């Protein structure tokens, strides 16, 4: 799960925390889960807030879930807004993590308004393989400029859909978080 911490979207992190807790409750033994932040340069292991592969034993798994929730809680409490938004970098990091784990099902949740804003010099116009990946955008909030011209919002969503599907992934947008129940 990629958390957007840029600008005013940082205020949505409490909602993200609820989603993370819900996800933790639904995951089972041997599942893997990682939460990374989207900031100025997201293609970095340092941006991984917490990661876990749940143990086979129920007691260990419960303990891991509690520890994970505590880490996320600490992160949310202390997170600072970043000036830029590198969503593609975060996506690349997520793909690398899931490929390394070798999981059967691969899902990337992007908790962001999908407004990418790269710092000068950062190259993100690269191809990557999303075959077998489900990429789900959550809580894609509308910016002020989207309200002025809704085409910006729609084209932003369409661009991401095109990009993801071009690289072989499945794209989906869920703004009503109750739709997450059927997903997990």
């Amino acid at each position, binding site marked *: 799960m990629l958390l957007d911490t840029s600008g005013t979207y940082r205020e949505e992190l409490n909602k993200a925390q609820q989603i993370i*807790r819900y996800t933790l*409750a639904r995951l089972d033994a041997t599942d893997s889960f990682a939460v990374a932040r989207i900031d100025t340069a997201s293609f970095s292991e340092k941006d991984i807030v917490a990661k876990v592969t749940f143990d*086979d*034993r129920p*007691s260990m798994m*419960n303990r891991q879930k*509690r520890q994970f929730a505590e880490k996320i809680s600490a992160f949310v409490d202390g997170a600072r807004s970043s000036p830029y938004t590198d969503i593609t970098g975060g996506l690349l990091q997520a793909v690398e993590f899931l490929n390394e784990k070798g999981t059967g099902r691969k899902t990337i949740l992007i908790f962001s308004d999908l407004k990418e804003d790269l710092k000068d010099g950062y190259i993100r116009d690269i191809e990557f393989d999303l075959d077998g990946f489900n990429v789900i955008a959550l809580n894609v909030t509308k910016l002020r400029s989207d309200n002025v011209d809704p085409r910006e919002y729609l084209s932003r969503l369409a661009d991401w859909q095109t990009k993801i599907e071009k690289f072989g992934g499945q794209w989906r947008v869920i703004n009503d978080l109750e739709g997450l129940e059927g997903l997990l």
Partner: protein
Amino acid sequence: MDFLLNITPWPVLSALLWIVLAVTALYFARSSAHKAIRAATDTLYQSLRFASKAVLRSATRLSKRNREVLLAAGREAKERIVEREFDRISESVRKDLASFSSLHRALSESINRIEEDHQQAVDVPPDPPGWVKAVEAVAKLDSRDGRVRVGNILSDIHKSLIKAHQDAVTMYREASAKRHTLLHKMRPEWRKIQQTLGQVGKNVDTLLSRSVTIDRHMQEYEDIVTGQDRAASVLSSSSLVYFFVSMLVLLVAIGGATINFSLIARPMAEMVGGTSLIGGFRTAHIAALVIIMVEISMGLFLMESLRITRLFPVIGALPDKMRVRMIWITFTILFLLASVEAGLAYMREVLLQDELATSALLRGDDSGTLTGQYLWITTAAQMGMGFILPFALTFVAIPLETFVHSLRTVVGLLTIGSLRFVSLALRLLAGAFRYLGLLAEQIYDLPLFIPLWLEERNSGNANKSADSAFAR
């Protein structure tokens, strides 16, 4: 099809021509066709009848074999019952006759004491008093000489009489008191005799009733040995009853095993892992099932060692010392497994609480760890069930034995019924084919009604002229 109707310029005529040709051909082929139909249907009829008879013979053989097995099993069961009854009688006789000598002695002593007391209680007539002789002497005195002295003598006699009367009354009272005392002392002895005789009576009644029971069992045993139909019928219906009753009890046992499984499956995941699979099944579930099966097996061996069941004659035939050793070993293993289960049941509760606490934390509840003052009840109940259920499951060996023994009879009866049904079906099919053949012949003759009518008419005329020629 068009070319068939174009052999003459008129299609109707062409059709009629074809019909006539077809009818003629069919008429000439009638005899061969009938023979072919009859041959085909007769073959089927004979084959099916043969198959039906073969199936019926199999059913009869199976029925005979079933009867033999049933009578053999009934004989064995009856022998065990008679043996047990004889054991009971011999135990009863030994117990009662062992004390017969002391009983006899006790009765004799009581009777002796009663006799003695009775002797002592006999009323001894008192000696006639001395004054009677004095009256005799006075009566003999001469009337003239004795008048003066008689008055004194009579006065003395009167005094003596009064004294003697008082003495006699005193003696009489003393004797009566003594008799009453003796009779009173005899009462406990009578009661004792009555009780002893009552006990003897009861023992004899028990023996008599046991002997009546043995008579009945022996009569049934004789019926079984001689292979009476009634005995076979009774054994068969008993077998069916035992089958259903044992099946019901086994279902209850399966329910108990399922509860036992649910108690230990979750904590087993803590030991062997929650997601590893063996052959598509979770390892934790298989491990839990194995524990339950081992407990049932230990229970089975325990029952066999105690000679309550006889599924494995090898165990029953072991020397007594070995058998006792086996009893202790199986009981110990069962006890240890039951203790392990109780521990696992406790662990299940701990895991459940841990999971609830984690879920509460993830939901954002402030309650934290759940604490309840009555939590110990569910924990204790689960531990109790985890400990007791293995011992309860040991008794599943008894209905299992009955189920296994009666299953053969039930399966045999069902097979016999199925074979008889198949035989009947084949026989019906045979008859159906036979009548189908007749029907086929008639259907064949249906379009040939004109030539057949002509044939019948010709043969009728020929018969009439033959009859009239014969008459002349």
